[in-house]
């Protein structure tokens, strides 16, 4: 039994800090587009939705080749809306929990597979990773391995990593960050991932160095 049936990849934004004239999800790393690695993780999930905005045709044409039955959710207002608005667009009619995945993440494959095997069906959890980004959203984790708070200022060893399995109707149409919306369901179980988020040229260089250790068999996802 799958731990969830719906997954949403947020891939609408500019990726302006990376400074490439391409949607971040199409940036090549280890010879493949970033989104190819995510689609590889989601190959058993029946309902995969990609929120598209910036250069939507490019993203659609690329993803169609890899995942012919993907559903593209259009966010034409991507330039002036938040990530939570993108997730809301993709999830507003859903009646079951869904996975959210930021389109700029490179996730260690075995971490994700563990979740797929061990998690109970539709149980809510939020992903964290050891703190390493330049502007982290710190996660406070209690002794029961639950996240109790998110903050820009209360430093901890963990940060929100852009992956979560959330109940329907939690993420609203507003200008907030997704983690602010997730505060509504705290405390929630934490799941730890090795994740590289690609925001800046420095992030890109670090992720490129680590790509071969993340467990992907590149030949099989091309």
């Amino acid at each position, binding site marked *: 039994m799958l731990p969830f049936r719906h997954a949403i990849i947020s891939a609408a934004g500019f990726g302006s800090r990376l400074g490439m004239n391409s949607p971040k999800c199409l940036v090549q790393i280890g010879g493949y587009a970033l989104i190819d690695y995510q689609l590889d993780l989601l190959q058993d999930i029946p309902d995969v939705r990609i929120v598209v905005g910036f250069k939507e045709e490019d993203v659609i044409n690329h993803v169609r080749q890899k995942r012919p039955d993907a*559903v*593209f*959710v*259009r966010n034409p207002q991507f330039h002036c809306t938040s990530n939570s608005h993108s997730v809301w667009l993709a999830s507003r*009619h859903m009646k079951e929990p869904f996975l959210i995945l930021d389109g700029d993440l490179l996730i260690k494959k075995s971490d994700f597979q563990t979740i797929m095997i061990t998690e109970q069906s539709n149980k809510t959890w939020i992903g964290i990773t050891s703190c390493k980004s330049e502007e982290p959203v710190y996660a406070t984790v209690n002794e029961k391995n639950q996240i109790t708070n998110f903050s820009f200022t209360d430093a901890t060893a963990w940060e929100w990593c852009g992956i979560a399995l959330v109940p329907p109707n939690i993420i609203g149409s507003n200008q907030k960050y997704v983690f602010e919306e997730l505060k509504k369901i705290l405390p929630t179980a934490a799941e730890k991932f090795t994740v590289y988020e690609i925001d800046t040229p420095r992030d890109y260089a670090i992720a490129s160095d680590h790509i071969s250790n993340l467990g992907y068999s590149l030949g099989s996802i091309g």
Partner: protein
Amino acid sequence: MPLETAFCFDLDGTLTKQEILPLLAKEVGLAEEMSALTMATMQGVLPFQQSFRLRVRLLSEISLKRAQEIVATVPLYALTSDFIRAHSKQCFVITGNLDVWVSGLMERIACPAITAKAEIEGDCLRGVSHFIDKGEAVRKIKKDFEKVVIIGDGMNDVPMFEQGDVKIAFGGTHPPIDTLIKMADYVTYHERGLCCLLDTLL
């Protein structure tokens, strides 16, 4: 109490894996010409009514019985047809195609259809007696439902999209036209994706 959601489907290329008119045109040796005309119409290069009248004229030498036999063989998207059959009180097919041609297909799909009407004489097609306004058809359906979901692929689906609450551009048979993609909330190219989406919109 009104049902929550209505689903309005285009027929050619949305529920059928092939465009119907080019298939009929094969019978009279005009398949390529018909395909070109159909594509031009889908893209909005030719107004639908004029183009359809012309296409019907080209096909009028096929007897009705033969045309119905041919149309009955057109493959349908199986998952989408299953969805419609399972929710037949909420599903509608809205097509500019002719009642006499698509009646066999509609028996297989088994939901209400709003179609153009043919002028017939015996076993011969004389012309089109009634064109449909797809937008108007959706407006009528809307009165009985809380929200209307539209699924289409071509230029003549634009009036439906203008009336819909949720708009899905479907590219299973050929890519949806750009205008429709720009109006759509969702775009998908496979019936599996489409049906996953439809299930969540019920």
